[in-house]
């Protein structure tokens, strides 16, 4: 069942969302959250999901304090009151 979830956006994605730092989407899983974001803000498409619909490796997605890669990735459920945070993955060599 879809619930309203607040999503915190990193600075680098805010320009794609008209400067907003928090947006609200209706979703029941993290996959829904990301697809809703891409649908509403198409500029985010290549930064959140790969062409095959999987989670892009350069983005970290959290539900409350947990990285969804350690939960059920895109299938991770979201519940009323959960806070979803997106941050760029920070990595290099």
């Amino acid at each position, binding site marked *: 069942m879809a619930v309203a979830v607040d999503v915190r956006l990193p*600075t680098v994605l805010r320009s794609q969302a008209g400067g907003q730092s928090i947006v609200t989407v209706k979703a029941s899983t993290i996959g829904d959250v990301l697809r809703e974001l891409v649908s509403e803000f198409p500029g985010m498409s290549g930064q959140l999901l790969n062409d095959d619909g999987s989670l892009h490796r350069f983005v*970290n997605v959290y539900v409350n304090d*947990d990285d969804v890669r350690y939960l059920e990735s895109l299938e991770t459920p979201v519940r009323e009151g959960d806070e979803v945070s997106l941050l760029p993955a920070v990595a290099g*060599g």
Partner: protein
Amino acid sequence: MLRLPRALYLQMVAHCITGLPEEACGVLAGDPVSGTVDRLYPTRNEAASARVYTVESRDLLQADRDAERSGTQLIGVFHSHTHTDAYPSPTDVDQAPDPSWHYVVVSLRDSHPVVRSYRIGGGLVEEESVVVLGQAAVAVAV
């Protein structure tokens, strides 16, 4: 220009040395306009490698939240190069997440640490000066 208070500069270099033989990393928070760092967050290297680094994702979230609570924001990242120059590797350039950030590389190849900072965007690398803020500001790289 990146402006680093002396205590944070020393903390950053110490974290890199402590991390040997692996690469060490962390993130910087401060004023995005002046490039002045007011908080430094040493993080774990999730890759646990001497050749690559990934800022541990929960450490990154905690740093981001703490910066926001303090009325500031993340403005950059630092990591060490254990055996190479203080210059961004091709991997650093490919994976640079935000063109507005400062990318600090601490080389531990030689007997003294070498600290340099860069702006990276669209595949281009531009070095910037690093100023250590203390009783007398000292420029350590141009």
